[in-house]
């Protein structure tokens, strides 16, 4: 298997982020403004969050990138740094927070856990990567990524922002906001409402298999 295929996330990457498009001077100005004031949501989940705080503290000082303004409310945040293990019990709240963030918004999966489940992937209460529910812009491997690695990842995010074009970005398009993600429900296990039919048929298949 080649590496590209192995690492493909399981959702569609919108065209506007997938590859570079023609960038105009206006875009450059627009992107420069946005990339230099990416305000993260004050939101920590697990061990990785401590490294995130360390990155905010004196030694690494994310203020140098305009990222020091941690907003406690999602309404004022541009970036969700998913810093830690995403558990099934927590994920409804995370999706709700994400839905409350205004566009343009970005999601960085910090650490192995948020990227793909991490060391606890086999656990019964763990969501194997936040990209199952929320589109992720940058994946930072590491357990935990050191503050320097986090900053390196955020620079990657800035590079991504640099490539966006005003004409293509989806948040200025007309029509209803299709990006709203239905909030998962806590049932006998985590229920993603988008997958109801699939779950139902798989559960039915289980029953027939059992009786066969």
């Amino acid at each position: 298997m080649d590496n590209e295929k192995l690492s493909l996330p399981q959702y569609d990457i919108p065209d506007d982020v997938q590859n570079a498009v023609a960038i105009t001077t206006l875009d450059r100005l627009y992107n420069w403004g946005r990339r230099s004031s990416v305000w993260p949501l004050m939101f920590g989940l697990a061990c990785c969050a401590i490294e995130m705080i360390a990155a905010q503290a004196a030694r690494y000082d994310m203020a140098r990138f305009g990222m020091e303004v941690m907003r406690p409310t999602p309404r004022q945040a541009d970036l969700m740094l998913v810093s830690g293990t995403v558990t099934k019990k927590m994920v409804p709240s995370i999706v709700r927070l994400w839905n409350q963030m205004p566009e343009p918004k970005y999601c960085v999966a910090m650490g192995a856990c948020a990227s793909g489940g991490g060391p606890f992937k086999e656990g019964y209460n763990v969501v194997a990567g936040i990209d199952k529910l929320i589109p992720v812009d940058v994946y930072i491997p590491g357990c935990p990524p050191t503050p320097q690695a986090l900053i390196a990842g955020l620079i990657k995010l800035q590079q991504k922002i640099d490539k966006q074009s005003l004409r293509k970005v989806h948040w200025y398009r007309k029509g209803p906001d299709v990006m709203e993600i239905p909030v998962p429900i806590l049932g006998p296990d985590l229920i993603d409402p988008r997958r109801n039919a699939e779950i139902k048929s798989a559960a039915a298949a289980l029953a027939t298999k059992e009786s066969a």
Partner: protein
Amino acid sequence: MYGKGILKGLSVTWKRFWSTYLEDISWVMSGKKRYFTEEGVKHRSSKHARGIFTVQYPEEQLITPEEFRYVPFLVYDEGVDGKKEVRCTSCGICAKVCPPQCIWIVRSNDPNTGRPIPEPTEFYIDMDICMNCGFCAEYCPFDAIIMDHDFDIASYSRNVYNMEKLLKPASYYRQIRPENYARNEAERKAKETAKAAKAAGAAAQAGT
């Protein structure tokens, strides 16, 4: 007096505030550069650190200690005409010891005899599961898997590494971990000489 404690506290912040500039001046006076030099970074992470504490990554970088571990990589020796001689013998110890079980190894078999040959055909590490614990490197008997120092590996997609992405040359290993490398090499040498001596001994024995 009410307010004495507050003043005392303020004196601390006041001192802290000025110490950056005092330090700057003293570095300029002694003709040394405080920023963007290794010396400066070292000083800022020593017991003498005073005033500004920031190491301005990416322009500056902290001194990485030799034992630092990030994600693992596989070592190959550069053979003649650039052939990659993978050190791994696919013994499977790393896959067995890995706590979250994120290493996958396919052992190769000789197509003629069907017997296993000491080289993996496929080797995967799921970096989105790996907990950077270092067990694989610690227990590998052939120093074939080593913990990397490179942390700038964020990407725009999931990170499952295959052989191609995992392999790095032994020279890189020597560069990031000189002491470990030297120790490993010495051990390997010792083992080889012992083996040679044994073989010579056996040959001598057979001769008599």
